[in-house]
C-alpha cells in the first residue's frame, strides 16, 4: 500500500463517520417526531423523562471530564453522588430548607473532590484506588447512618417558563422542569464555553495534556488540579442532591445505582467534551426512560429485567466500542512531580 492510498482511506473514513453521525441524528429526529404524531402524550412523557434521567448522568460526566481534563481520573463519582444525596437529604429533613439542602449536597461533593485531590496529588496515591476509597467510604457511611422511613420536607418542583412551556412537544420537555435540571443544561453550555474559550479552560487542558509544558510557562499544575477536582466534586454533589431532592424525595441505600459509573461511560462516549457528554447522556437517559414506559407500550412480552438491563448493556457496548478509539487527555492519572 502506498502513502497516498493510506491517506485517502483515512480521510474517507473520517468523512464517512461524520456523515453517518449526521444521518443517524436525522433518523433519530424523524423517528422521534413520528412517535410523537403516533402517540403524542406517551412520546412527550418519554422525552421529558429522558431529559430528567440524563440530568445526574450529565452532571457526573461533567465532574469526570473536568477532573480528567486536568489529569485526575475520578472513579469516585458514584460515591460523591451517593454521599451528596445522603447529606442533602439529611439537611433537608432536619432543616426543612431545600436550598440549604442542595448547597449541602454540593459541598459534600466538593469535600470528597478535595479528598480525592489530596490522595492523588499530595499522597501520590494511585487515582483508581483513591476513587475506590471514596466509593467504599460513601457506601459504608450512608448504609451505617441510614434511618428507614424518613422523607424529605417537600421536593424541588417543576417551574414552567411562561408561554415557552406551552409550545407543543418542546414546551413540556425543555421548559417545564425543576431547578436542577434547568441548571444542568446551563452548566453544559457554560462548561463547553469555559473549557474551550477561556483562560481557565486553556490552562486546564494544558495541565491534563502536558503538565510540564504548563509548569514551564508558570502555571501551577498541582494547584490547578486541586482546584478543578474540588470544583468538579460540586457537580457530583449536585447530582446527588438531584436524586434525593428533585427526583425521588427520599433516600434509599445505594440509590445512585451505578449512575456514577455510567457517567464515566457517558464522558468517554462524549469524547471528554460537555456537549458531547450531554448528547451521550440523553441517549442513556432515553434508555432509562424506556424502562418505565415499556409496560405502557404493550411490550410486556419482554421481561422487565431485560428492559432494566438496557442502560447497563449500552454502557458495556459503548465502553467496548469507544474506549481506545477516542483519545483521553494524555497526562491523566499521572502524578506531576517537577523535581
Amino acid at each position, binding site marked *: 500500500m502506498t*502513502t497516498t492510498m493510506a491517506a485517502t482511506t483515512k480521510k474517507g473514513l473520517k468523512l464517512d463517520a461524520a456523515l453517518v453521525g449526521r444521518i443517524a441524528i436525522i433518523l433519530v429526529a424523524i423517528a422521534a417526531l413520528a412517535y410523537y404524531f403516533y402517540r403524542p402524550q406517551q412520546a412527550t412523557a418519554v422525552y421529558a423523562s429522558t431529559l430528567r434521567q440524563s440530568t445526574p448522568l450529565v452532571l457526573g460526566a461533567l465532574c469526570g471530564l473536568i477532573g480528567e481534563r486536568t489529569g485526575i481520573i475520578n472513579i469516585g463519582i458514584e460515591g460523591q453522588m451517593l454521599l451528596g444525596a445522603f447529606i442533602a437529604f439529611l439537611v433537608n429533613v432536619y432543616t426543612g430548607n431545600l436550598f440549604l439542602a442542595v448547597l449541602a449536597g454540593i459541598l459534600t461533593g466538593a469535600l470528597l473532590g478535595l479528598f480525592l485531590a489530596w490522595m492523588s496529588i499530595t499522597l501520590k496515591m494511585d487515582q483508581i484506588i483513591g476513587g475506590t476509597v471514596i466509593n467504599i467510604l460513601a457506601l459504608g457511611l450512608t448504609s451505617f447512618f441510614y434511618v428507614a422511613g424518613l422523607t424529605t420536607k417537600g421536593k424541588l418542583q417543576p417551574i414552567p417558563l411562561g408561554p415557552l412551556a406551552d409550545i407543543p412537544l418542546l414546551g413540556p420537555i425543555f421548559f417545564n422542569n425543576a431547578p436542577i435540571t434547568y441548571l444542568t443544561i446551563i452548566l453544559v453550555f457554560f462548561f463547553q464555553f469555559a473549557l474551550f474559550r*477561556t*483562560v*481557565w479552560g*486553556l490552562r486546564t487542558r494544558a495541565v491534563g*495534556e*502536558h503538565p510540564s509544558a*504548563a509548569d*514551564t510557562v508558570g502555571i501551577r499544575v498541582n494547584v490547578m488540579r486541586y482546584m478543578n477536582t474540588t470544583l468538579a466534586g460540586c457537580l457530583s454533589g449536585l447530582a446527588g442532591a438531584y436524586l434525593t431532592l428533585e427526583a425521588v424525595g427520599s433516600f434509599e441505600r445505594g440509590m445512585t445505582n451505578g449512575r456514577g459509573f455510567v457517567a464515566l461511560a457517558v464522558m468517554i462516549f462524549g469524547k471528554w467534551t460537555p456537549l458531547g457528554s450531554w448528547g451521550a447522556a440523553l441517549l442513556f437517559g432515553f434508555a432509562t426512560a424506556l424502562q418505565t414506559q415499556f409496560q405502557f407500550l404493550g411490550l410486556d412480552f419482554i421481561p422487565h429485567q431485560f428492559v432494566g438491563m438496557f442502560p447497563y448493556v449500552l454502557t458495556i457496548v459503548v465502553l467496548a466500542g469507544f474506549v481506545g478509539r477516542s483519545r483521553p487527555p494524555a497526562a491523566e492519572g499521572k502524578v506531576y512531580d517537577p523535581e
Partner: protein
Amino acid sequence: MSDADKSTIVLEAKGITKRFPGVLANDSVDLKLHKGEVLALLGENGAGKSTLMNMLYGLYHPDEGEIWIKGERVELKNPRDAIDRGVGMVHQHFQLVPVMTVAENVMLGSEITSRGGILARRRAVKRVNELSQQYGLEVDPTALVEDLPVGTQQRVEIIKALYRNADILILDEPTAVLTPQEANELFRIMRDLTAQGVSIIFITHKLKEVLAVADRIGVLRGGRVVGTAEPSTSTETSLAEMMVGRSVILQVKKEEARPQDLVLKVENLHVKDDRGHLAVKGVDLEIRAGEIVGVAGVQGNGQRELVEALTGLRAVEDGRVTIDNVDSTQFSPRQITELGVAHIPEDREKHGLVMAYTLADNMVLNNYYQKPYARGIVMNKEAVVENGAHLVKEFDVRPPNVLTTAGKLSGGNKQKVIVAREFSRPTRLLIAAQPTRGIDVGSIEFIHNQIVAQRDRGVAVLVVSAELDEVLGLADQVAVMFDGRIVKTLPIEEATRERVGLLMAGAEV
C-alpha cells in the same frame, strides 16, 4: 573588569552550587552572558548543564550562590519569575501541548484575553504572525502542534519565549532532533536573534556546532566550569579534551569490513506505529556477516518501528524478514533471540533492563530459562550470580556489584549491562538502536569498540542512531531512512554529511 564590559553583562551566575541526594550536580559554577552573544555551554551528559539552566529558569533552586540578571540580584522561585525578567528557555524535550494550536501554545500562561478571561484567539494569531515575521520564524499559528515537523515545533518554542519578551534565551540541546540542514537554519535564526539584541546560551555536546555558532565557549565537567575558550583558537580535539578531561579519540578505530554471507534480509516490510498508521512503508534491507549497516534518519521516520519489527516486538503488516535463511517474520522475540539476534533497545530503561532487578538477574533476562540458570522451574541463583560477576568484570560495569539494582546505575553503566548481556551469547545479528544516547564519552568509546569487535568476529550489525556522526563513524554501509522508507543506501566512502543530511530531509540526491 572595565565598566563598559560590566554594563553589557545581562546574566551572571556566581558560585552556584546544587546538590541532589548523593550527587553534587553543580559545584560553585561561575558564568557570564553578554548582551547579543551566543555563549555555548559544552559538556557531557551528566556534567550539570541542564541542572544549571533549570536554576537560571527557576525550575530548581540553587543551594548556594547568586544569580544576577541585568545588574540585579534575583531569587527565582519559579519559571514565572524568570519569565518576568526576560529569560526564555527552549527545553530539550519540547514543552508544547500536541493537541493545541501554535497560537494556543504560544500564549499559554500569558494569554491574550478580552473581558473576563475569555481568550482573544484572533489577536493571538495576529501576535504570533508579527513575531514570526519580525524574527524570520516561519510558522502557521492555526496549525495543531502535533501535525508539525520537529524543526517547526522548535520555532514555536522560540516564538513562545519571544512572545514573553525574552531577551535571554536558553537553548537546551536544540539540535538533537534536527537534520544538519535544519540545524543550519537554526543557527541562522540564532544569528538573526543576536543581531536584534537577544543573548543566547546554547547548550550542546556537539563540538562542530559549537565552533560554527558560538561567540564564546564555556566547558562544564563534573558540575564545574573547567574552562572557557574562543572558537577561533579552538579545535574539536581541544574542546573534547576539556570536556572529558583526558585525550579522546573522536574517530571510531576500525579496519575495513570483510563482508561474508548474507544474514539479514528484509523484503518490502510494512509496519504500523502505535496509532495504527503505517510507519514503515516498504523497507528492503540486506546485511552480511562482518559488516555494519547504519540507519541514518531524523527521529520518527519509522526507525523505531523497523527495529521493533525485526526483533519481534511489533507485528509485521506485510513483507518478509529472513535471518540466516529462516523466515522470522512471525517469530516471537524469544524465537528471534534464539536465532542469535542480539538487541540493544532504544529505550534502555523501558525495554532494556528491569530497573528493580539486580544486575545479575538482568544479565540473564534473555536466557534465564536455559541451563545452567534454570533447572526445570527452579532458578540456579549461584550460576546467575557467577555469570553476572564475570560479565561485570569483563565489561567494566561500575559499581562492580552484581547485587545492586539496575535502577541505581548511571546511563552509561546501564547500557554496559545491556551490552554485556547481549554480547555474552553466540551472536549472528546485532541490532543496536541509539546505542550511545545520553551516555558519557568514555562509555561511548567502549560501546563503539565493542560493536566493531562484534563485526570483526563475523556478526552482521544494524546500527540505528539519530546522531549522524555515530552512524558515519561506525557504518560500512549507510542506509538513509525517510518517511518509512530506506531512500538510499550508500557505501561509507560516498556518505558525506551533506549528502546524507539532504537525504534525511527527503531530498533526492
